[in-house]
């Protein structure tokens, strides 16, 4: 019998009620996260990537709600937890960091006090209370390479640079030794040199405490640098899932292909124009039946792509949702090419 994955998300659907009916922002998303691995969730704005991450800690903003599916940590449903049990998971077994550290740091407390509070809340059984919790907070700052951690611990968030605040947020998230780190665009607002510092810090700490990381980002280069596996989201649906090397070497989905081709790094040498995906992402993806990418897809098969999206397992660990890979799609595609 296989051990269940650390975190498993099955058929997750998230909707926001509106005047004209529900707007579905995440539609049947399934994936698993194993101990120690880093999985990237890539997508553009509106793809549902942040909502997916937020739902894991039941943090979807009102009036949004999970309308279907399950989320389980070590086989135990997170959606069924009581508020009290949920508080122990949040910041304890599952920690989250955001793009803007000021949203998770309280401006009126020193950073040392904020980290110590989290330690007292989640690690009191280890005897980490009072002064011991403060010392652990200083240690946490030292681990994220903040110079003079004793002095910094007594400072307020506004006294630190952006890169340092991001490191403080990571220190706070990791002070409770979580099993899972949800990182939502953790380096998007940072400069490249600081981004490199933060990404290498996350990797280093991951090796140290063996946590799993779910990295939400729009940046394919960051994914290529850090992730073992990748999930590509478009309009609330998983389009493709693969190990990072296969995805970048041989993207199968026309959307993934389009994304990779549009990177300036992948432009043919000397080309003055970049390859691009025509059109815009849909504004209300829930309204679309069939493949949500078909209006922009260069390989669209009329009469086929309007049908519900198939899920095709190409090989172990490699999944794609595209009509081109089903039998009807294949015949039609070879037809169209002739």
């Amino acid at each position, binding site marked *: 019998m296989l051990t269940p994955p650390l975190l498993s998300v099955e058929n997750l659907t998230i909707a926001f009620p509106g005047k004209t009916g529900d707007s579905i922002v995440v539609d049947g998303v399934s994936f698993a996260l194993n101990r120690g691995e880093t999985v990237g969730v890539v997508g553009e704005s509106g793809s549902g990537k942040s909502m997916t991450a937020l739902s894991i800690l039941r943090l979807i903003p009102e009036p949004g709600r999970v309308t279907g599916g399950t989320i389980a940590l070590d086989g135990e449903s997170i959606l069924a937890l009581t508020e009290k049990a949920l508080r122990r998971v949040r910041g304890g077994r599952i920690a989250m960091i955001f793009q803007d550290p000021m949203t998770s740091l309280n401006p009126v407390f020193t950073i040392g006090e904020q980290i110590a509070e989290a330690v007292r809340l989640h690690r009191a059984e280890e005897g980490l209370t009072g002064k011991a919790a403060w010392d652990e907070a200083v240690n946490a700052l030292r681990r994220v390479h903040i110079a003079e951690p004793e002095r910094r611990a007594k400072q307020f968030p506004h006294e630190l640079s952006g890169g340092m605040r991001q490191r403080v947020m990571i220190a706070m998230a990791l002070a409770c030794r979580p099993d899972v780190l949800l990182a939502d665009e953790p380096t998007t607002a940072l400069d*490249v040199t600081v981004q*490199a510092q933060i990404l290498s810090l996350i990797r280093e700490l991951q090796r140290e405490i063996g946590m799993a990381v779910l990295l939400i980002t729009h940046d394919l280069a960051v994914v290529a640098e850090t992730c073992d596996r990748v999930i590509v989201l478009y309009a609330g649906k998983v389009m493709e899932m693969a190990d990072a090397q296969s995805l970048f070497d041989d993207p199968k989905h026309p959307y993934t292909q389009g994304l990779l081709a549009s990177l300036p790094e992948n432009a043919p040498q000397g080309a003055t124009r970049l390859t691009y995906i025509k059109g815009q992402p849909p504004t209300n993806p829930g309204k679309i039946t069939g493949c949500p990418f078909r209006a922009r897809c260069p390989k669209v098969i009329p009469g086929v792509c309007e049908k519900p999206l198939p899920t095709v397992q190409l090989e172990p660990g490699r999944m794609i949702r595209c009509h081109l890979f089903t039998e009807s799609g294949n015949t039609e595609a070879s037809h169209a090419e002739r």
Partner: protein
Amino acid sequence: MLNVENLTVHFPIGRGLLVRAVDGVSFTVSKGETLGLVGESGCGKSTTGRAILRLIPTTAGSVAFDGRDVLSASNTELHELRRRMQMVFQDPFASLSPRLTVGKIVAEPLEIHNVGANAAERRDRVTELLSAVGMPVGAANRYPHEFSGGQRQRIGIARALALNPEFLVLDEPVSALDISVRAQVVNLLADLQQQRGISYLFIGHDLSLIRHAAQRVAVMYLGRIVEIAPAAALYSNPRHPYTRSLLASAPIPDPSRRRERAPLEGDPPSPVNMPSGCRFRNRCPFAQPVCAERDPELIQIDGVAGHHSACHFARELPVWSPLESYLPQG
């Protein structure tokens, strides 16, 4: 076409302290050329762009556009120069008034500069501009919030093009856009440049995008240009340690080229309290005692016309080979 000499912008912040945002920057932009200006937040790249258009006051230096002095121009002269020099902003959500229709937004520069005999003529011009940037028919009567980020940026470009400018400052024009839309806008800018011979100062922090978009690139650090070169030379043979740190920090979209880096340590010093000598020396792996004593000037790199680096050891740095720092996977 544009000649910037020793441009300096200092902001007083009280108690006699100065933020030296831009501190003696010089460069030129030729007709039809794109100069990329890269650097990290706070390096002064956006301030440089704004100072050139006289959107903020400068402390010293000169800006000549087509031989005419921008900084000392009278109001009438400036009004005339502004027809020829325009700006596209980063945030397509903040830079368009939500209360004006798209048509009004694009027509505004025409009205201010009395272009077009009457409203009907201006309307035709607006239609033509919106179609040139690829906006759908009928966009003129709608409001900015009805459009996506990429489309809003197209509206910002149409507004900047309204007066047929010869020079555009592009301040991070695609940074707020999704990847699949980013390439569309970059192509649009390239097409417009080709059709109209416009010069661009392309400000950005995305090194691979600037490499694609610019013929020459200037790298800024703490208010100074530390290296300037033709794009190919800058990326294949960077001659300033800071440029090397930037290039080594940028992630590569290919897992087989994953590399373990020695990240650049620390934060940039405060622009209020600069280190003596070279501003990069506190973080520089090549720093020597001389770097604390003398402020390095831009020196010519042998063999490449127009390649300059402000490092005492610009000519002695080891051969640049990013591939050496790549580790095999696993």
